């Protein structure tokens, strides 16, 4: 199993090649992009755990790309740059980067920073956790949900929605945030779609869908996944 899926964004093909080789050797899956626009497209269309982003790129620079990614995604971002002034670091971190590595860098340092950034991600996002709530078990690796001894059939979208909600337990999740996180950044107004999906999920996982215990409606805001404190 891969340790994570990483997007390398750099206009320099040599750096992309070196990073690809290094990361694949460490068990990561690697995809790359040559520009900020291509990176945004990748983030939108693929499931990624971390982005390594060069700060100086022609066209959309690293800071703008970082801001755009961060506005729609909680993915970990590590910036790479030749500049190491305090102002540059502050700018990158303020744009939403999780960490900052100055070129030239050694592979061990970069790998350690990647591991640290991935550790800080919610566990569910890395696909390693099983969540048990009462008699319901959600396995994020195998994407299976069982209630009691019965396996529940969820569509991929229903599972993605459940996964997102379970990874942010006991928090009111606004409609827009849910739609953009599960369906993509082009969505946001389709609240009625969300209602249909949540209703379907309730029918499948709740004992009494009309009086839900887990998928709670937050009036005028969105939904909340109710997880008891003793659940793992």
């Amino acid at each position, binding site marked *: 199993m891969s340790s994570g899926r990483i997007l390398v964004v750099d206009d320099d093909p040599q750096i992309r090649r070196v990073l690809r080789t290094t990361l694949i050797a460490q068990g990561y899956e690697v995809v790359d992009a040559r520009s900020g626009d291509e990176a945004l497209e990748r983030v939108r269309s693929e499931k990624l755990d971390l982005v390594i982003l060069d700060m100086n790129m022609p066209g959309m620079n690293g800071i703008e790309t970082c801001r755009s990614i961060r506005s729609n995604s909680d993915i970990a971002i590590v910036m790479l740059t030749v500049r190491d002034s305090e102002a540059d670091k502050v700018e990158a971190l303020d744009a939403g980067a999780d960490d900052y590595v100055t070129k030239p860098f050694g592979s061990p340092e970069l790998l350690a920073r990647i591991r640290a950034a991935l550790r800080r991600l919610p566990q569910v996002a890395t696909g390693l956790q099983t969540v048990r709530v009462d008699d319901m078990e959600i396995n994020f690796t195998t994407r299976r949900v069982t209630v009691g001894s019965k396996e529940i*059939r969820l*569509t*991929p*979208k*229903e599972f993605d929605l459940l996964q997102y909600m379970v990874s942010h337990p006991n928090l009111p999740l606004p409609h827009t945030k849910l739609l953009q996180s599960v369906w993509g950044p082009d969505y946001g107004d389709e609240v*009625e*779609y969300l*209602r*249909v*999906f949540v*209703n*379907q999920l309730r029918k499948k996982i709740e004992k009494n869908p009309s009086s839900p215990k887990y998928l709670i409606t937050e009036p005028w805001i969105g939904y909340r996944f109710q997880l008891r404190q003793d659940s793992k």
Partner: protein
Amino acid sequence: MGSAFIPAYQVLAPPHTEPGPELHITVVFTNFDDTKQALQAAANLASGLRADIDLVVPEVVPYPLPLVRPAVPPGFTLRRLMNLAREADVQASIYVYLCRDQVQTLLQVLQRQSVVVLGRRKRWFPTKPMLLARALRKRGHQVILVKCRKNLM
């Protein structure tokens, strides 16, 4: 008292190769342009839900005419609807009902807590689809109003 209606025609979509659908999404016919966009929205929704799409057409027959003889022959309407589904690139089952009252007919033919998709235009006044949506919501159906754009072609 239930309003009179006759199920005139139905064309069923080809059966699934996978286990049966878990949900039926009903698109109610309003007009050809808006229904085409509603069908596309329903297909988008259905793809994430393992759902089937039903296109329900409550065709109102005015009182001077007998219920079994609408002004437009149902066969002709059905052919246009099949073309519409083909143009929208949606595999939908089509149900045509001849009736006197659209809302009453829908309330009788829809299953409990159905998911209904309706095309609508943005207007400042309540339009027919909006009033229909309100009536269906009152009866516990889940209605999705799809904002439709004018077809300029």
